[in-house]
């Protein structure tokens, strides 16, 4: 067997991105994937005979530098504007609100005053997110010794801030850590619009719209760029699985060796240095650089082991909050559902059921006490409309991310699952009467299921809450925030690192750059 320079643990999208960047720079890279195929939560799977779906169901932040650096467009990925889809805020009682263009460039269904107010708020949000955007594709700033390049990057951010002009800069600083509910109330009045924005801010988080710092979630979304459109979102041709296939192809084309069904049991550490891995089978593989794209707690506590780490560091890792609140619902339907008020040409849109900010907050409350939301809020896509191969002819796939479904449900998910499923179906029925009768099969993945299936502790797709106190210098923990870790030769490249999760490839890319930039990397 040829020896490798680098072993990457985890063949999810970040692991593949990191491996490919390193291979393109001349390293010999081996990716070890525990499952039988790569792609992680971006994989497409068959959940009912003839019906296929992916956990991650929309592309909205695959980083342009990843697309370019890995030449993904030449491998079949298309970012044609035709694939962009609008967002629709459904309303039980009346007409829905339609946000077309990149995150609502145009607002259909709102009165003119609200359209004007939204245009201002949208511009403001994009402006402010734009200030933070460059910080995402860089290492978090180092608080003490800062390299010239890092200082320069921070200075650029400072300049961008100054270019806002004094009053805008003041507002930027004022609202940075604000709660999204109060922020929206300052200028907007349409409940459907505010509900959608509030939902987007807290999607994937253990926060409600009234929680301080929840506005950051909206910024995170608006730093995402797809097909050149900031705030855009698209249904990838062939589904998310095709994106993973393109990443797979890019890796192999660059000479990366991928082994699947090869779960890693231990990272070998000698004298404070990572020297290789041991698979569950007992096989040992040596390499000078080990990259883990797995969850940071898994990496440090299971694979490395506390005895190679100092107590304070271990404590910090144990304290990472990573209990997820998002469940995924997959429905195999006999036919395409009709959501009230949704025009035919927008059936492929992202449909959001979050009638108001209060509604989202009320949905959040039970999650604090280990209970699920009796009236959940959700974002829905029908991926088979743009990708007919995902369903049998005439049938339809419904893919929904639903909140809140707390990982540590007090009554346990064995008991809770059927009740929560009933609650979601009830909500769907109210917005698409008759849909219940067309369900051939339902797959509800709670955070506990997601944890088991995708090796994501807590079922959390960010591998750790993406909240202010777990960002930047504290992501995943201080001491491992710059992709290198206290163990020499061991690096992190997964969603648990800066800037967070979602199908972006940024942690993987940043980690590769860090490795290549470090002496001996």
């Amino acid at each position, binding site marked *: 067997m040829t020896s490798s320079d680098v072993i990457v643990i985890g063949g999810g999208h970040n692991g593949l991105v990191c491996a490919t960047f390193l291979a393109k720079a001349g390293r010999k890279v081996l990716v070890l994937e525990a499952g039988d195929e790569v792609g992680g939560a971006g994989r497409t799977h068959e959940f009912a005979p003839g019906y296929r779906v992916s956990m991650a169901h929309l592309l909205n932040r695959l980083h342009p530098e990843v697309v370019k650096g890995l030449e993904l467009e030449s491998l079949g990925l298309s970012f044609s504007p035709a694939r962009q889809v609008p967002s629709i805020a459904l309303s039980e009682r009346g007409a829905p609100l339609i946000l077309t263009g990149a995150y609502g460039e145009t607002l259909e269904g709102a009165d003119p005053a609200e359209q004007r107010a939204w245009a201002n708020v949208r511009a403001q949000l994009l402006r402010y997110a734009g200030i933070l955007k460059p910080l995402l594709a860089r290492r978090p700033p180092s608080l003490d010794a800062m390299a010239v390049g890092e200082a320069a990057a921070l200075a650029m951010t400072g300049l961008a801030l100054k270019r806002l002009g004094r009053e805008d800069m003041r507002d930027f600083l004022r609202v940075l850590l604000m709660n999204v509910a109060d922020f929206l109330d300052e200028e907007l009045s349409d409940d459907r619009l505010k509900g959608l924005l509030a939902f987007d801010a807290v999607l994937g988080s253990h926060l409600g719209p009234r929680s*301080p710092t929840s506005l950051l979630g909206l910024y995170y979304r608006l730093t995402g760029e797809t097909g050149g459109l900031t705030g855009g979102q698209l249904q990838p041709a062939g589904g998310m699985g095709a994106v993973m296939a393109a990443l797979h192809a890019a890796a192999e084309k660059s000479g990366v060796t991928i082994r699947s069904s090869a779960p890693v049991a231990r990272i070998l550490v000698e004298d404070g240095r990572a020297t290789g891995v041991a698979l569950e089978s007992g096989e040992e593989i040596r390499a000078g650089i080990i990259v883990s794209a797995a969850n940071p707690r898994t990496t440090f506590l299971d694979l490395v082991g506390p005895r190679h780490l100092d107590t304070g560091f271990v404590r910090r890792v144990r304290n990472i909050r990573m209990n997820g609140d998002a469940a995924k619902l997959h429905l195999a339907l006999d036919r395409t559902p009709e959501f009230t008020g949704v025009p035919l040409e927008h059936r492929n849109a992202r449909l959001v059921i979050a009638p108001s900010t209060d509604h989202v907050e009320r949905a959040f409350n039970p999650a604090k*006490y280990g209970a699920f939301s009796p009236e959940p809020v959700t974002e829905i896509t029908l991926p088979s409309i743009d990708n007919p191969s995902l369903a049998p002819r005439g049938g339809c796939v419904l893919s929904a991310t639903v909140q809140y479904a707390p990982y540590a449900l007090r009554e346990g998910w064995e008991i809770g699952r059927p009740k929560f499923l009933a609650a979601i179906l009830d909500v769907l029925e109210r917005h698409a009467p008759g849909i219940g009768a067309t369900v051939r099969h339902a797959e509800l993945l709670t955070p506990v299921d997601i944890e088991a299936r995708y090796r994501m502790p807590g079922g959390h797709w960010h591998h750790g809450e993406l909240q202010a106190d777990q960002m930047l210098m504290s992501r995943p923990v201080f001491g491992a925030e710059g992709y290198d870790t206290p163990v020499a030769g061991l690096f992190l490249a997964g969603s648990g690192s800066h800037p967070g999760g979602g199908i972006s490839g940024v942690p993987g890319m940043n980690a590769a750059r860090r490795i290549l930039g470090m002496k001996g990397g």
Partner: protein
Amino acid sequence: MKTWDAIVVGAGHNGLVNACYLQRAGLDVLVVEKNDWIGGAAVSRSLTPGFLYSNCSYVCSLFRPEIMRDLELPKYGLQVISYEGGAVFTQDGDYLANYRDHHAHRREFARFSKKDAEAYDRYARDVTRQCRFIQPLLMRTAPDPTSFKPRDIGELVYLGRKFAGLGAREMADTLRFWTMSISDFLDEYFETDVIKANFALSGIIGTALGPMSPGTAYVLLHHYMGEVDGSVGAWGYARGGMGAITRALADSFRATGGTIRTGAEVEQILVRGGRTEGIVLTGGEEIRARLVVSNADVKRTFLKLVEEKELPDIFLRRVRNFRMRGSSGKVNIALDSMPEFPALPPDSPCLRADLHFTDSVERMERAYDDWKAGRWSADPFLDVVIPTTLDPTMAPPGKHFMSCFVQYCPPKVEGRDWTDADRDAFGETVISQIADYSPGFRDRIVHMEVRTPRELEAEVGLTEGNIFQGELTFDQLLFNRPVPGYAQYRSPVGGLYICGSSTHPGGGVMGAPGRNAAAEILRDLKRGIEHMSPAHDVI
């Protein structure tokens, strides 16, 4: 007509502190107060014969020792009796006692959990470190990060150096601490519900947030930053009630030549050519002054007392968006005899300090959920003190005054104004909770005053009943308080300043806003501030 050097609007504690410093700098100062009594929310009221109520604020600790010394308050009769004790009662009949002595407190924790007792050392060390970093900020004017004035840059550099002096790991920890919820912070140390509840209470008193809201860990510091007689972290009763503080301030003020007029409500602050010329009282009387300092909250000042056309649009918009939703109520009770709490040992010293009946963070958070829904909490949390256990001046011998601070109360009940029936029902919720832990409690009640945000607004002038004159969230703190660009006590109107809790560093009976505003005013007048002691580190 006489032209005063300065008129201070509102004789709350910050207004009086401000007036004292200005008078001692040689200005001729008039304080006008709408009520017949002075003190704002730091008052002692006799609402039933023989008894005195600290019917708004009720304990003293955060009051800056530098201010006490500068204004010679002990000379003018202020005595603060430090107390220790307090307990959290658990629903199963036990209690967790509070001790100021670290080791005694630790032993008490060990009754519930050895692990938590051990974690307490680490907790105390980590919190103290955070206190050290923040404390200089309280007595300094917040710098404007959008300004390039030498003073602001100098201040930012000072703060930056202080921050950098922490070391990279501590810096990361501090940033983390400032954005965490108190619940998450406590989860990193303790496992016992009642122990966490005991600490969490500090995090949310006075806020419109719950213990699980990000940003509540920082408020914990506020309550550790106080000092009584050089004893750090101590709390105390002002002898004679909280009114003793403002009475001493008023006496100190008058002794140096200051004038106070009560029963004088300001109708308008006069502005001409972008500068203030004085005030007009209801009834039409005009009083001229070169400067006006408003101790009223920022909304009352700029939306009621100053004509809209005198203020820039962007400023008005920000003031209108300034959030000051009230979140608390108060029940003040005159008792015929000392109440019994059978859970405690007889004659327990715990009774001299804060008593609580909320034994878990979850209950606290659920109480907050009620507030969000526009209702008073069905299971409220109370901060109960019986000052008469240490202060004999507030009730006849053998009888007692009990102060209950209650969270949460919404500013409006499900969108409509509080009614008397609401107030009474709310009061009953409180009495009922105390009675659960104190048999025969109801029979001891001689008189009761129930205050909701409605009463706080109507009587004290606290808009929406918010006791801090504005919520303490990130977007309304430091250089954002009360609004960005006007966080240094000045206003868009020349000669008009603000000095109340709406300004940095916020609320609590601290006196820092009033003092800091005086420093800015005297700087603008190019007068010396040698008579103002610089902040000394409490920890």
